[in-house]
């Protein structure tokens, strides 16, 4: 039995007296997509911050491909094969689109020449090739989201953490984004996806992890989770039903 690609145990983050994330266990297998859901303030982004090295966990262990990466700085975690996108897009505004992606490509360890071909290929892949030379600050929201994904992909991760890449997209843009995530998986990249839109997360995910008040409420296939009474009570019952008129 091989251990999962990403194995997280007892992940905890305490801010002052508040436990934003408390004892979360997570695992991600090669080629899997795991959905991470939960109400606002459930600690989803804090989990990503800790996994990617943006925040140091208070307690817990993170193993990536058999290597412990707990508490590593983000750039080392990235070089080790895991990176993330941000909920609110964070492009390098003074750089061109190509240069944004090149930063990721060399950040993942590629030499300059190789980085250029990776960048060109990645931009083609996400559909930004035509914008390659524009300054990043001039892009539209969907293109900024594409750029966010392209920059992360260019680091050639084994695990990609997507933080609400679908938020703010129009209904017409949504299928494109879903297709993009599936295409990423087809490249052999495993993903954890934070998402508010339930249809999207249920469609995409092999498994779903539900967080509430920083704690793990339920884990299972999308079908299991949707039918879990505890989940319905805590999360779907209020926000989901209200938001989606169910």
């Amino acid at each position, binding site marked *: 039995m091989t251990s999962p690609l990403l194995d997280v145990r007892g992940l905890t983050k305490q801010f002052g007296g508040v436990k934003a994330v408390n004892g979360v266990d997570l695992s991600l297998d090669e080629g899997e997509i795991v959905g991470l859901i939960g109400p606002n303030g459930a600690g989803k982004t804090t989990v990503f911050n800790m996994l990617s090295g943006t925040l140091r966990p208070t307690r817990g262990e993170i193993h990536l491909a058999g290597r412990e990466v707990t508490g590593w700085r983000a750039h080392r975690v990235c070089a080790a094969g895991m990176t993330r996108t941000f909920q609110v897009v*964070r492009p390098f505004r003074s750089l061109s689109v190509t240069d944004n992606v090149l*930063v990721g490509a060399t950040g993942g360890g590629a030499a300059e020449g190789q980085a*250029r071909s990776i960048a*060109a290929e990645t931009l083609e892949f996400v559909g930004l090739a035509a914008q390659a030379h524009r300054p990043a600050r001039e892009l539209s929201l969907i293109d900024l989201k594409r750029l966010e994904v392209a920059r*992360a992909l260019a680091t050639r991760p*084994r695990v990609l953490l997507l933080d609400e890449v679908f938020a703010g997209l129009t209904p017409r843009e949504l299928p494109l984004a879903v297709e993009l995530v599936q295409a990423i998986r087809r490249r052999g990249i495993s993903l954890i996806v934070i998402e508010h839109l339930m249809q999207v997360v249920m469609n995409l995910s092999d498994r779903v992890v539900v967080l509430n008040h920083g704690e793990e409420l339920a884990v299972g296939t999308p079908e299991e989770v949707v039918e879990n009474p505890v989940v319905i009570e805590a999360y779907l019952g209020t926000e989901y039903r209200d938001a989606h008129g169910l």
Partner: protein
Amino acid sequence: MTSNSVPTTVDEPPRTTPVTVPGVGWRDRLPVRLGTPLVAGLVLLAVLALAVGPNAYLAGIVIETLFWITAASAWNVLGGYTGMLSLGHALFIGVSMYAVTYAVNHGWSWWAATPLIVVAMTVIGTLLLFPGFRLRGPFFSLATFALPLIATTLAVYAKGLTGGSQGETWPVNPSGGQFVFVSRVPYLLVIGVIALVSVLVSVFIDRRAIGRRMRAVADDDVAAEAAGVPATRTRLIATATSIALSSLAGCFYVTYVAFVDPTSAFALDVSLKVVLLAILGGLGRSYGPLIGAIILIPADSWLAGAFPGGVHLLLYGALLVVLVLFLPQGILGGASQLLVRLRRRRA
């Protein structure tokens, strides 16, 4: 970092698309070459030295301009590319001026003392700024602003080393080792080479991964780290490069002005001028400080002669306000925007 990278078999994107895709321009395929600016710079310098060498007044203006090209390029590496707006760069120039004066007055050759001082200044200065790396934006500026003020009072106080408020003078008898020449040509050549080096360093940074990393860190260090950029190491490289070039500029400048005292060495004027020149030419652009210095320094020499007193400082202040408000990208940035607009109109 490369040792950590995962085996590329799993995640290497499939190579179905050609290396160059439509939309990637000639500049992206250009190999990194410093040859052209190097040769052009050396030829220009030789011509300049021959042309203005005999004329002490013109030579003086050219030497000043070349010095400020160096100092502003040095600042630009940290403030322009990496977004750490230091308001205290006079510190590194001033301390180096003092150190090399002390060494030469104690029997050292300038040529031997300068490399040692540049290395020492770089190490000490980087250690000094390192704790400030976690300060962002204006907080970093405030902290660096205070450094030359402290240095001024310490220089006045430490009379044994610095000559107190009287300052120290450079030797006067011509001597190659002590860098005292009657002709202006050696000064022109040495500062010319230093300025050329500083511009080439910027061009190099501009064309390599390190320049993108500096800009990425300046724009958003959290996102940069997530994309694999070691932000602290990038800041260290920028800081050390910037201080080394500033120190080199200082080691030269004192041979030319032949005098150093606390108020001139650590003047706010100096810290401000490097910022102003870089912004005027174009913040975070490799030729920005060069353009800024070529425009402003000769004009400044004329102004200082024509209107003694505070007029040139008044104009600097006003120019800084006007630039940031109306031309925040500087002359080069404004010009490139204009070009883009013209091209779009034609298309």
